[in-house]
Each structure stands twice: as C-alpha cells, then as structure tokens.
C-alpha cells in the first residue's frame, strides 16, 4: 500500500520539478543555447533510466517471488526485439503482451 503522505509529496515534487524543467529556458534563461556537453548527456537520460528500472523487474519479478520465469523473460525479449526492429512502441507492447499471455497459458 502506498503511503498517502508519500503519494502527495511525490505528486507535488514531481509536478514542481517537471514544471521548472519546462520553464527554465523558455521562461528565464532565454535565448542562450545549452552547451553541447550538456545536450550530449541529456540525450541519454531516458535510454539509461528505463532499462535500469526494468532490468531487475524482469530478472527478479515480484509476482513469482523473485525468481526468473520463462513467460516474463520471453515477453521482455519479444517486446525489446520487436521494438528495436520496428521502432514502433505499440508493436512492441503487443508483442510483449501476446507472448506473455501465450507463455503463461503454455507453461
């Protein structure tokens, strides 16, 4: 169960922080461009955080008590493979979801 205080703290903090990031250049800093080295690092934030967040969830899924199981592992591979091949988020989700259901039924 998520703690109510924590939930509202996260909503408020995340809202303020995200708004500040959206406003900072448009609103305050103005026309000065971001330095190249900063842009270079910003480009790789999402592509680092998503895989880092998801890897432990795939290898040690909570629903199985923390042991790697075939349906979830295969579903993850299918979603990643189709996503990289087609560059299409929905094809990837459909592939992952499809494999998960088939494999859960199978095993």
């Amino acid at each position, binding site marked *: 169960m*998520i703690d109510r205080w*924590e*939930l509202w*703290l*996260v*909503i*408020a*903090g*995340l*809202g303020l*922080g*995200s*708004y500040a*990031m*959206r*406003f900072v*250049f*448009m*609103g305050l*800093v*103005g*026309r*000065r*461009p*971001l330095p190249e080295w900063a*842009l*270079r690092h*910003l*480009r*790789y*934030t*999402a*592509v*680092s*955080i*998503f*895989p*880092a*967040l*998801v*890897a*432990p*969830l*795939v*290898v040690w*899924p*909570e*629903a199985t008590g923390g042991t790697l199981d075939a349906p979830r592992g295969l579903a*993850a591979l299918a*979603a*990643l*493979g189709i*996503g*990289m091949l*087609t560059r299409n*988020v*929905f094809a990837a*989700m459909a592939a*992952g*979801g499809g494999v998960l259901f088939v494999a859960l039924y199978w095993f």
Partner: protein
Amino acid sequence: MPHPGQKATFLRGILDGLPFVLVSAPFGILFGVLAAEAGLNLFEILSFSLVVVAGAAQFTALQLMMDNAPTIVVLASALAVNLRLVMYSAGLAPHLGRASLKARLAAAYLLVDPVYALSATRYDAEPDMSMARKLAYFFGTAAPVIIGWFSSTLVGAAVGTQIPEAYALDFALPIAFIAMAGPMMRTAAHMAAAFVAVVLALSLAWLPYGTGLLVAGLGGMLTGARVELLQRQRVEA
C-alpha cells in the same frame, strides 16, 4: 482575432495534434489502470496526471512507490526521466522566449513530447511566422494532446479496479517500459548507454534504498555521451 491567420493556425495545430491522441491514450489508460490497481483513488490518479503531465515519469514514480523506494529516490528517478524537458525548453526558447510572461507560463505547463516535436518542426519549416501565430500553433497542438491525456487517465482509472488479478498486470509496466526503450536504440551510443545501465542496475541491486538505479542511470548517461564523442572523433579523423 487581431492577427490575420491566427485562428487558421490554431486549427491547423489541433489537426496536427489529433493523431497523437491515439498514441498517448493507451498509455493514459494503462497509467489509470495500474494506479487504480496500486490503490490510488480517482481523485489521486487524476491529480497525478493534472499536476505532473508526463507519462513516462508518472509510470516511473508509480513503479518505485509500489517497490517502497524512499521518496527521495522516487523523485530523483522520475525527474531524471523528465530531464529531456530541459532540452525541449531550450529548443523552443529562440521561438517563444519573447512571448508574454503569461503565455510562457501556460506554454511551459503544456510542453509535452508531441507538442514539442510538432512545434519545433513547424517553426523550422516556417521561420517567418509571427509570435501570435507561433503561440496559436503551439496551443493548438497542445489542446487535443493534453485533453486526451487527462481523459484517457480517467477512463483507465475508472475501469482499473474491475480487472481481475489473473491478467498478469504485474508485468504490464515492465513491458511498457521495454516497449518505450526499444525504439530509442537508434545508435551504438544509445545501445551502449542502455547496456551499461542494465549491467549496473543488476549488479548494484543490493545497494540500499534503490540508489542502484540512480547510479545505473548516471553510468548509462556518461557511457552514451562518451561513445557518441568517440564515434564523432572517428568520423572526423
């Protein structure tokens, strides 16, 4: 309307933004469903979307709160996912930086991925757009996208509590994250960043309070930037 073409430009923005509702609505529904499953009520779920207005960060925060990560780690990780917004803000600053404060305050609230992508493309294609028309286009694209995000969250929240446990929803979020990450692997630098982040996240999972995730994210970022630099130097050499 005092400026000629302002209304037509606003309508054009709406039309360009509409297809993106189809792209973001499934994520809005999924967020509503998973948040409801996590025990959030309708008001809390809608507030989440209204205040944060950023799908990927909302998913990240929700997952980490369910994992009982400390609040500071939840915030740091979700904000890291949103760092790209700084890039968007910098990208639009040359175009909207001289608009009225009121307009910029409103535009910042509505600055989400499709609105940025559409506006930046349009401003580049039509450099002599007046400020009034630039703003009209921006708010035009934002209208359907933002309304779609809120309403799809609401739909998801409403149906979320009715879905039986047997549907393995525990794994919907990991699949959504992987599906979002796959298409990002455009270059060797992106793949290297993701690979290092995964290896670090798995080997540092023993670190307390989810701090392994932050170290892994930072490691991935540094790797991606480094590989990009090396590749560029090799091309120039």
